[in-house]
C-alpha cells in the first residue's frame, strides 16, 4: 500500500485568503445601503458596475496570459468595489469601468496577477480616472434633499451639486458641517466614503477579524490627526480641524481598505507602523499642496513603492543585535 506524501504540518488553519476578501465585500453592503438611502439606486448600480467589470477584466486578463482564471480569491471583486464606491454618485457608468480596466490591465496583470502587484490596483485605477477625467470627480450631489438620483446619466445635469467638506478645507475659511453631520455621513462626498460612523464600525469588524492590521491604520490616522492639529486649514478650533480633515474626502476609507491591502503593505509590525506614518504624511501633503482637493489614492500609490523597503528595514532594525551576533560568530 502506498500512502501519499506531503509536507508538515498536516493540520492547516481553515482560514483562506478568499475569506479576507469576503470580509471586505461584506462590509461594503452597509455602506451601499447608506448611500442608497441618500441617493437612491444609482450608487449601488455604480458599485456593481465596478465589481462586475473588474471580475470580467481579470478573467479576460488571465485567459490572455493563458492561465487558469482564479476569480475565487476575490481580489478582483474587491478592486472593482473599491473603485465603484469612491466615484461620485453623479459619475457616468463607464467611469468605474475605465478605472477597473486600468487597475487590472495596467497595474495588476502585467505584474503577474493576484499577490504579485506592487501597487494597489484600486488606488491606481482611481488615480488614473481622477487624472484623466477630473471633471467627473469632486462634484457631489446634496444628500440633504433625500430625492433619489435619476438612473439615466443624461438627466444628471439638473441635480444640484454642493461643495464637499474637502473642497471647503482646500479653500479655507469656516467649515459648514458639524461633527455630528460628519459622523452620520450627511455631507456630499463619494459613494462609500461619507458615512463615517458606519466606516468606523466596518473598521472595527475588520480589525476583529484580523483582515486589517492595527499597526497600519492607527499610526496612519494618528499622523493625519497630528498634522491636522498642527496646521489647521479651517477655523473652528483643534477638534473642528481634526474632525474635518479626518472625515472629509476618502481619507478614512482609503486607510481602512486600500492601505491595508496585504499584497502592497509591509508584513513586519515595525515596517507597518512606518508605512502608516508615511502614508498619513503623504496624504496630508497631497491635501495641502496637491492639485485636487483629495489625493489619498496618489499618496497610497507613492507609499506602496516604499512597502518592501520599509518591511526589510523594520525587520533589520528589530533584529539588529541578532544579525550582528550571528555575523560575529560566523
Amino acid at each position: 500500500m502506498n500512502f501519499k506524501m506531503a509536507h508538515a504540518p498536516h493540520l492547516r488553519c481553515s482560514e483562506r485568503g478568499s475569506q479576507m476578501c469576503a470580509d471586505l465585500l461584506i462590509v461594503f453592503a452597509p455602506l451601499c445601503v447608506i448611500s442608497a438611502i441618500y441617493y437612491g439606486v444609482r450608487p449601488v448600480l455604480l458599485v456593481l458596475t465596478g465589481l462586475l467589470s473588474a471580475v470580467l477584466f481579470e478573467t479576460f486578463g488571465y485567459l490572455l496570459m493563458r492561465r487558469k482564471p482564479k476569480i475565487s480569491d476575490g481580489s478582483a471583486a474587491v478592486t472593482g468595489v473599491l473603485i465603484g464606491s469612491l466615484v461620485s454618485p453623479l459619475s457616468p457608468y463607464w467611469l468605474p469601468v475605465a478605472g477597473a480596466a486600468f487597475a487590472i490591465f495596467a497595474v495588476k496583470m502585467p505584474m503577474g496577477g493576484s499577490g504579485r502587484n506592487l501597487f494597489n490596483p484600486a488606488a491606481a485605477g482611481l488615480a488614473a480616472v481622477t487624472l484623466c477625467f477630473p471633471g467627473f470627480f469632486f462634484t457631489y450631489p446634496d444628500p440633504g434633499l433625500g430625492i433619489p438620483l435619476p438612473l439615466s446619466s443624461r438627466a444628471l445635469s439638473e441635480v444640484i451639486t454642493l461643495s464637499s467638506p474637502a473642497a471647503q478645507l482646500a479653500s479655507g475659511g469656516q467649515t459648514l458641517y458639524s461633527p455630528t453631520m460628519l459622523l452620520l455621513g450627511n455631507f456630499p462626498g463619494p459613494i462609500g466614503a461619507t458615512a463615517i460612523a458606519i466606516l468606523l464600525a466596518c473598521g472595527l469588524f475588520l480589525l476583529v477579524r484580523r483582515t486589517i492590521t492595527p499597526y497600519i491604520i492607527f499610526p496612519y490616522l494618528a499622523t493625519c490627526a497630528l498634522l491636522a492639529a498642527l496646521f489647521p486649514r479651517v477655523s473652528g478650533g483643534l477638534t473642528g480641524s481634526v474632525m474635518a480633515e479626518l472625515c472629509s474626502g476618502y481619507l478614512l476609507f482609503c486607510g481602512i481598505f486600500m492601505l491595508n491591502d496585504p499584497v502592497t503593505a509591509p508584513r513586519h509590525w515595525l515596517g507597518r507602523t512606518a508605512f502608516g506614518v508615511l502614508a498619513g504624511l503623504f496624504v496630508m501633503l497631497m491635501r495641502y499642496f496637491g492639485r485636487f482637493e483629495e489625493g489619498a489614492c496618489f499618496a497610497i500609490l507613492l507609499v506602496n513603492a516604499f512597502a518592501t523597503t520599509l518591511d526589510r528595514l523594520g525587520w533589520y532594525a528589530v533584529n539588529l543585535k541578532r544579525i550582528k551576533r550571528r555575523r560575529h560568530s560566523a
Partner: protein
Amino acid sequence: MSKVEKQPFSKTMTEIKNVFLDTFLTKNIVLVQAIGITPILAAGVTLQKGVVLTLCTAAVLLPASLFMSLFGDKLPTWVRAPIYSVGAALILLGAAVLLDRSVSNELYASLYVFLPLTAVNTLVSYRAGGFSVSHVPVVALTDAIASSLGFGLVICVVSALREMASFGTLWGETLNFAIVLPEAALPYAAFLLLGFMAAFLQWIQSVIARRENASVRLNG
C-alpha cells in the same frame, strides 16, 4: 593619465552587426539600460518634438563618440567630460539657431530647456564617455548610430502615442478622435508606456530564447 585598453575588434561585419543589434534592440538604450528617460518623459509629447530630439541627439552623439574613440584614451580622465560636453553644447547651439530661424520658432520655444539639456544627457555621457573610449572608431560610430536610433525609436513611438491621445493629432494633423485625454501629456503616461514597451521587449526576447533553446534541444 589613465591608459585605456581598446577592446579587440575582429573587423568582420558580424561583429558590427552584433554591436548594432545589441545597442539598438536587445540591450536597448532606453528600454533595457534605462538611460535618457528624462527627455522622453518631459518633452516627448508630440511626434515633431520627438523627431527633433532624436536628430539633436544623433548630431551630438556621433561626433562626440568618434572624437572620444579617436582621442579619448590620450586624454586624462578629468578632461574628457568637459571636452565632449562643451563640444556638444557648441553643436547644439548651431542646431538651436537652425531650428529657431529656419524650421519653426514655436517648436523651438516649446522644446524649452530640453534641447540644450541634450548636451549633458546621460545618454551622451554614458555612450561617448564610457563605451567609445574603449572601442575602435568603427565600433564606436556603429554604437552611436544604434544608440541614436534606439533612443529615436522609443521617443518617437511614445511621443506619437501621447500626441494622439492628448491632442488627437499626429504630426500636427487633426485625426478627429471622439475621446481626447489631455492628461496623457503628463509624465506618468510616458512612464506607463515605457514600462509596457520594456515588458514587450523582454517578452519578445524570452520567446526568441525559448525557440533557440527548443532548436538546440532538437539538434543536440
